Every structure is written in C-alpha cells, then in structure tokens.
C-alpha cells in the first residue's frame, strides 16, 4: 500500500462522505421540523438525477441542468409536504412513516414507467477524466463533489443562520408551538425546509449520476436508507451530527471494503456498521442521553 493509493482512497472517501452528507443533512432538517422519517427522500433524490439528465440533454449546459433540476426537485419536495405530510402530521407517528413509504414506492415505479428500467448514461466530458497530482490520480468528479458540497453547505449555513427564513426554520425546529405563538409562519418555514433539502439532494444525485455515468430508477434506494440510519446515528434532527456521521460512514465504508476481506457486499458492511452503531449509541453520536 503506497501513499498514492492511500491518498486516492482518501479522496474517494471524502467524496462518498460528501454525497452521504448531502442526503443526511436534508433528512436531518426534515426530521428537525416535522419529526418524521422521510423515506421518500430516496425517491426525491432519484427525481433530481432524472431531471438533471433531462435538462442536460435539453440544453446541453451542465449548469442549467444543475439549476433547473435543483429548482424543480425542490418544488417536488415542497409539493410532497403540502399534499401528503401536512394533513397527516397530527395523526399517530406510524401514519406518516407508512405514507412516506407509499410515496417512495410510487416515485420509484414512476421513474421505471417513464424512463424505463435500464440505466441511462450521464455523459459529461468535462468531469469524466481524472486529475493527477503528487503521483496519484482521482476522478475529477470526486473533486467537483467535494467542492460542490463545501459550497452547498456554506450556502445552507448562511441561509439558516443569517436570513429571516433561516430564523424561522431554526425556531420551528426548536419548538413548533412556541414558534407559532411568536408569529412565525410555520407552514412557510416547513415548506422552505423541504425545498432546500430536496434541492441539495438533487445536486448530490446529479453528481453521483456523473460519477458512475448512470441514472436508474433504484439509484436512490440504498443511499436513502443509509441517510435514515445516518440521522439516527447523528442524533435525530441534529444537522451537524448527521454530517459527521456521513463522513464517518464514507471513510469507514471505503477503507473497510478496500483493506479487508469481509464476505459481505459493500452495502451489507455499511448496514452492519450502522446497525451496530445504532445499538451501541441509540441516542446518536451527538445526541444527549434521554
């Protein structure tokens, strides 16, 4: 094992962790305001990839594809909240969970019906090559993912911490009743959360589509389940915890699969680690003991 391969693994792990973080941060925000497990986020993510590919073929511009897909996917997320979750929230907890599974199943079957069950190629030559430096090489998409994630998270942080709408989101996440009494438009804040998380997921999905040069109906499934496990590990609704957990998983998954011969698939290993972590620290990495 040379330093060069170690460096490559490091870049890979960082990129993988970034993708996980983009999903997990959205799920954590949604859990923060509504206290629901948004399983359908996996479907929203896949919608982002398909929309991105559609706009890319339509316009030929990657940046238009990114912007268009993020906007539309954000609207889809907000629509799901408006149509399904809002009437259900006062009902028992399991109702929202099952409805979320329903949306997820619907979405993934819709992609299969509309775009076919096969993989579609996402060819973007500008990011297809590899970047070489210090004797190592890593896919340039990896760097785009890392840089994009940093920028997205920076923007998200500014929005949540420094703007009026972010103020509303933080208030709703703390105490929905108190926020309502203080005159905060709760519905609008929740809509904003769904819009933002879905847009971030779309960004991640397009990047993953380019990375593997493939967009297919079930591409969001595994990453969606992992995202849910990550917000549990991160301590429910804790965005920072979810992001840290995402990078821990990215590194653990990359290095365990490279440097060991456990007779399990990559997903099996990841899920096994997540199950163990949830059992050892049910309150999450950053959560306080209840």
């Amino acid at each position, binding site marked *: 094992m040379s330093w060069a391969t170690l460096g490559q693994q490091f870049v890979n792990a960082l990129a993988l962790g970034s993708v996980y973080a983009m999903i997990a941060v959205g799920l954590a925000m949604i859990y923060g305001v509504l206290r629901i*497990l948004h399983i359908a986020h996996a479907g929203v993510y896949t919608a982002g990839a398909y929309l991105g590919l559609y706009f890319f073929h339509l316009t030929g511009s990657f940046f238009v594809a990114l912007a268009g897909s993020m906007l539309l996917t954000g609207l889809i997320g907000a629509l799901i909240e408006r149509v399904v979750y809002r009437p*259900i929230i006062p009902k*028992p907890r*399991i109702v929202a969970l099952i409805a979320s*599974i*329903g949306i997820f*199943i*619907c979405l993934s079957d819709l992609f299969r019906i509309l775009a076919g069950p096969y993989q579609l190629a996402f060819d973007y030559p500008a990011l297809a090559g590899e970047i070489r430096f210090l004797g190592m090489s890593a896919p340039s998409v990896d760097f785009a993912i890392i840089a994009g994630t940093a920028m997205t998270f920076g923007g998200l942080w500014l929005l949540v911490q420094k703007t009026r709408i972010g103020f509303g989101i933080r208030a709703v996440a703390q105490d929905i009743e108190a926020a309502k009494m203080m005159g905060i438009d709760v519905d609008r804040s929740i809509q904003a959360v769904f819009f933002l998380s879905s847009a971030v997921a779309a960004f991640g999905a397009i990047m993953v589509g380019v990375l593997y040069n493939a967009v297919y109906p079930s591409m969001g499934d595994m990453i969606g389940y992992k995202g849910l496990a990550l917000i549990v590990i991160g301590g429910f609704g804790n965005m920072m915890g979810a992001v840290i957990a995402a990078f821990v998983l990215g590194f653990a998954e990359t290095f365990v699969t490279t440097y060991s011969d456990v007779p399990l698939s990559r997903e099996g290993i990841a899920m096994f680690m997540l199950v163990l972590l949830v059992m050892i620290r049910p309150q999450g990495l950053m959560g306080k003991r209840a």
Partner: protein
Amino acid sequence: MIDAYLVTVLTLMTVWSIVALGLNVITGLSGQFNLGIGVYMGTGAYVSAILTTQSGLSFWEAMPLAVGAASLMGLLTGLPALRVREDSLAVLTIGLVFVFESLLVYLPYFGGPVGISKIPRVALAGQQLGNEQFLLLALCGLAVASAICWYVKNSWLGLALESIREDEHATSVIGIYPARFKLYAFAIGGGLAGLGGVFYAHFMRFISPYDFGFMPSVYVLVMLVFGGIGTIRGAIFGAVVLTAVPELFRAVQEYRNLVNGVILILMMLYQPSGLLGRGSYLWSLFQRMSGSATLVRPAGVSDAQYP
C-alpha cells in the same frame, strides 16, 4: 376440482396472510415498528429448505425446527427493540433486513444469489401432496396462526402488549416489564412469519435472498395497513385482496408498485386504521348491519387509534 391457477393464487394468499399475522403481533399489537418482517420469513424458509434438501429431513421434521429458528431470530432482533424505539427501531429493522439479505447472497452455504432450488414437495404417509392438498395444509396453518393470534390478543399477554403500544412508560409504572413482553411479541411474530416462510419455500420450491428483502417486507406492511393494522381480520383481508388484485387486472400487474404506493398514501390520508380496522368506515357499517354494535359510544369518543 378447482382450476390449478386458482389454487396457486389461493395458496399465495394463505402464505401472505400467515406472514401478515406475524407482523401484526409485532407492529399491530405491541406497536413495535418493524420494516424487516422478511428476516423472519426468510429464516423459516431457508432453514426448512436447507434441512429438507441437505440434511434429508422430511417437511414435518423440518417445519418445527424452522419455525423455532424464526422465533429465535425474532428474539435476537427483538433485543435492539429494548434499546431503541419508534423511528430508530424502524431504521434499525431496515438495516437488519439488508444485512440479512447480503449475508444470504454472500454465503455460499445458503446458495448465494441464486438461492436454493429443488425444495421437495410435502409428503404425507408416503404420498406426495398435490397442489390442492397443499392448499388445504396451508389453510390449516393459517387456522393455527389465527388461533394463536386470537389467543395472544385476548389473553393477559395481549393486554400487556397493547398497553405497551399505547404508553410504554405508564405500562412499566403499573408493574409490567415492557422488555419481556416486547421479546414475547418478537418471538411469536417471528415464529408466525417463519411458518409462512416454510409454506412459501415448499410451495414455490425455489427461494432466493431477494424473496425476503426490504421490498417484500414492505409489501407485508402494505397488506396489514390496507386491511387494518392491529386486527386479525385486517391482516388476512389485506393479504387476500392485495394478492388478488394484481392477478385480476393485468394493468395492475404492470404497475403493481405504483398501485401499492397510491393505496398506501390514500389509506394514510383518509382511513389510517385500514379498511376493516377498528373504527373504520366499512367495519362500523358491517357492525351496524349485523347489529353487533350494541355498545353506543358517547359522541366525540372514538376507538383508540393505532398506536
């Protein structure tokens, strides 16, 4: 004589009813979220398949062992339920079903991704059972499973489980130890789902890891929710209807997942207690028609909703 195709569909309905009854004990009665019922069904199916194909046991010898193994698996996976609850438990069971599937795929002993084939037919008194006799056998299994569920629900155990579902903290305050009863629920539910798995394996005579993954587990939940979670009639009704619908309408078969998803969303929006659940429109109508609803509830008080 009935049509062979009809026998096949009826047998599948019976198998899924048994599995749905198992999930009903865990999620319906005691309120423990479980999105991984496939783990128990798969344990039952695989143990029975391996014992009959490799160890040369007969169906009758393998069945109790397989059900026992599934029950044990229920106990094992019930242990995390003592530490985490609600949303965490739902996520954890998703994780478990993926670990289970990936173990089956990667261990050659379990046949790898292709699974196990040539599972023998059930023989009784030296004679192989035909499909119709097998259906009768499965129906007997369903009768036993329903009886167990009925007993659990109406015994002291069921009372304890339902009280854990409604308020775990209050339950422990009045001296019922929730951990013990949760484990009972997981063991009983796991065993029932395992029984369904045994019938599934010997009916299909070919099983693969993907038969017991996340999606099949979700289907069972859909059946339960559709029929009415927490009730025996609901579990069976949901399994029967949702097995029949794709067979009856070819268009539905093509878009099976879409239809399932839409059913889930609509049910949750308008009738979260299920079509035949407690306090649902259809069931109240039925009770009124049959005159069995003698208890008149004061206005504004509804049946306790799940959970």
